[in-house]
């Protein structure tokens, strides 16, 4: 799990069994003490592998949306909740967005990748050796090197942690952009996520958005998953179109693409990919 604190925005991404939404009231309280008012909120998630393990009262997206409706201040009056389907029954994308006006947010986009059915040999790199006597930091560094995660964005400063008996989290920071990876490698329900942000004007330098494509390719190659879902949130349509260019060379075929518009963020495009049958 990860927390990113900018001067005027906070992003928290936690493993699926937490009651993440309970962080909103105390965060609003601390922000108010600093003279800051909430102007926009976005909550997103995929489908849970263990839906019955969800803690009450956040046991369904309906419950979560209700909690958000009741917790967010009234001046965030432009609100939308949406469940974006795909051709894969196990994959849907849940989005709740609320803002105080419909002006578009600055130029940042977000790419959220969820990978399942990881390559077993590659997933084993995220298990601790029993009794290795290492700290989580040292184990995390070893996993980063072993899996080549430091090569995904060579400019990023990596902060990583290896969990016992298995599991891995890392944050990469590169200027005002972050990337983050979380891995639960156990056979049968192996999962890895990759998320990064960027500016829709990044492309203007070299016009082809190759940096993003290269980064997404490298991130997915670390895990060689059989199933991938990619959610892009952006005011520009160029971002989601790049995703296919990163997946197809890895043998991943696009199985579905759904899009939806949300106040203040532009569009969310949800794509799913599966490994071509051998």
């Amino acid at each position, binding site marked *: *799990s*990860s*927390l*990113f*604190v*900018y*001067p*005027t*925005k*906070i992003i*928290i*991404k*936690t*493993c*699926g*069994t*937490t*009651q993440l939404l*309970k962080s*909103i009231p*105390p*965060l609003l309280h601390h*922000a108010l003490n*600093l*003279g*800051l*008012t*909430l*102007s*926009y*909120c976005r*909550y997103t*998630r*995929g489908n*849970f*592998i263990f839906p019955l*393990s*969800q803690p009450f009262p956040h046991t369904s997206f309906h419950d979560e949306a209700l909690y958000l409706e009741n917790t967010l201040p009234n001046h965030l009056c432009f609100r939308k909740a949406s469940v974006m389907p795909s051709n894969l029954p196990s994959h849907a994308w849940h989005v709740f967005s609320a803002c105080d006006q419909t002006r578009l*947010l600055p130029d940042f986009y*977000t790419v959220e990748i*969820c990978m399942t059915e990881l390559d077993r040999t590659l997933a084993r790199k995220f298990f601790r050796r029993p009794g290795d006597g290492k700290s*989580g930091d040292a184990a995390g560094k070893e996993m980063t090197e072993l899996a080549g995660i430091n090569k995904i964005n060579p400019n990023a*400063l990596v*902060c*990583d*942690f290896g*969990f016992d*008996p*298995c599991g891995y*989290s*890392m*944050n990469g*920071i590169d200027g*005002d952009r*972050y990337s983050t990876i*979380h891995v*639960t490698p*156990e056979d049968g329900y192996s*999962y*890895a996520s990759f998320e990064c942000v960027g500016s829709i004007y990044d492309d203007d330098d070299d016009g082809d958005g190759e940096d993003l494509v290269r980064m997404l390719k490298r991130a997915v190659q670390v895990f060689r998953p059989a199933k991938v879902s990619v959610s892009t949130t952006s005011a520009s349509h160029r971002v989601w179109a790049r995703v296919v260019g990163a997946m197809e060379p890895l043998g991943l075929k696009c199985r579905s693409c759904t899009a939806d518009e949300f106040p203040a963020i532009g569009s969310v495009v949800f794509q799913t990919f599966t490994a071509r049958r051998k």
Partner: protein
Amino acid sequence: MAVSGFEGFEKRLELHFSGDDPVFLNVGLRQISFDSLEQVLREVQCTVVSAVGNHYFDAYVLSE
């Protein structure tokens, strides 16, 4: 549930704030003390295991 106790698919929350004082906006939320952040994370059943920051933002790795 996975042996490690994790549910792979995550929940992600993004909150944007605005204020009147432009000078303030350079630091803003980064002034929230570490103890206060930890108190918020306790609500979420998380704790900080690693942290790094630069001129623009602070990044924390959390554990459930």
